[in-house]
């Protein structure tokens, strides 16, 4: 894929992001990302707001039209497709785990988890670690044909370790590259590669 499309793809996955964040996702130098994005703004392909960039609707469509060209080999790669299907299965578990991290049953009712019950939190963390073990295998298989998938391995592991070290914001905080943030981007990336739509 050319740099322009790779940067646009990274921006589509992150939706609204500054050049360094896109750069780390797609593995292109941040200065190069910045110059492509500045050019994109000048040509009406992106907007800049609050230090971040976002693709304009038509630029997003144009990018999506080219996916059938860029990703044709991956869509035909049996190993990659099988790994993707496994990811979709694990994804259902992950969403339940995150939901259980955010909510807790108190007197028969689901309420926001304020993290004062270590037993509940530890049990959910154990399940998250279990999910991570499964996704490691999947990412290994995805990274064979598509090496840039390794970045997700690193980011997920970093978030998991930070959460296990006691800073629980690393599980699902939306303002940082928490486990759930990275997972969601990985899912978005894969949906775009495969040309699929989100289920739920």
């Amino acid at each position, binding site marked *: 894929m050319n740099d322009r499309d790779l940067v646009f793809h990274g921006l589509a996955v992150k939706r609204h992001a500054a050049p360094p964040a896109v750069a780390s996702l797609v593995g292109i130098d941040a200065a190069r990302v910045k110059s492509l994005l500045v050019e994109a703004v000048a040509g009406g392909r992106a907007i800049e707001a609050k230090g971040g960039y976002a693709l304009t609707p038509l630029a997003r469509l144009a990018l*999506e039209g080219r996916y059938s060209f860029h990703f044709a080999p991956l869509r035909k790669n049996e190993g990659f497709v099988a790994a993707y299907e496994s990811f979709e299965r694990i994804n259902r578990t992950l969403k339940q785990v995150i939901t259980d991290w955010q909510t807790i049953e108190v007197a028969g009712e689901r309420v926001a988890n304020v993290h004062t019950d270590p037993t509940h939190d530890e049990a959910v963390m154990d399940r998250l670690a279990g999910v991570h073990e499964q996704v490691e295998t999947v990412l290994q298989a995805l990274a064979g044909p598509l090496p840039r998938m390794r970045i997700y391995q690193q980011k997920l592991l970093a978030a998991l370790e930070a959460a296990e070290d006691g800073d629980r914001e690393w599980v699902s905080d939306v303002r940082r590259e928490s486990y759930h943030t990275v997972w969601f981007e990985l899912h978005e990336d894969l949906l775009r590669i495969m040309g699929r739509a989100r289920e739920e």
Partner: protein
Amino acid sequence: MGESLPLDRINTGAVPATPLVEATLSLVQDLVRNRYRESGLSWAEFRYAGSDRLLRKEDFAAIERRILDAGHRFAWSAVISVDERPEAYVPRAGDEQAEAGFAHPEAPQGEVEADGRAVRGVGDNVVRQQTNAVGIARYIRSNERVLTYLSEGVPRGTIAVIDDSGGTLTAPIIEQFAGVICAGGTIRSHLGILTREYNIPCLMNAKVAGIKDGDRLMIECSAAAKTTEDYQQGVERVARIWLLTGDAEVRS
């Protein structure tokens, strides 16, 4: 790394001048690529005979639909264009179209109650809040609107009415909503996870009708949250959405 067709090779040069040309070209090429692949024909057969049969008028109409659905409106040079297809063209000055609201056939509809409230729908509460949320309904279905809000900020007290349970469109501005009503998904959807994280009242899988852009609403986010078990066992557990008419007391 792509699968190179002749049409892909002729276009490796300059980027098209305008975003509309680039999008149209890209979507037409995508169509050709897919039809060619499905046809099993050789490129010569496809080009000389197959394409007349395999590329249909409806395919091109669908491409135009995607462009319009993305929020684009075509510029017009004769007024008759915009008069005949107001949905496809930039509106005439002072002639902004009102956004048509969701109209779910199963949305409960109530009479105006003594306190000025009228039920306009129900949804699955993602987490129980202390109080109900009140705000102004704003449909967010076009990228254009998201881009405007992203650069100018979301108006205070906005209850976003959307159908995108992945939060794909709204993620960059979600933080600024006073509430969310989503016509799809479940409490476990990505959007459910995001709104819980931001502590924004949110109803998923909402069935609403009779809510216009700009209406004042109350959402019953103090109702019990829907649970995974509820979905599995088919338990009806909903939170209501009220339209607040002129004299409604705001009591939460």
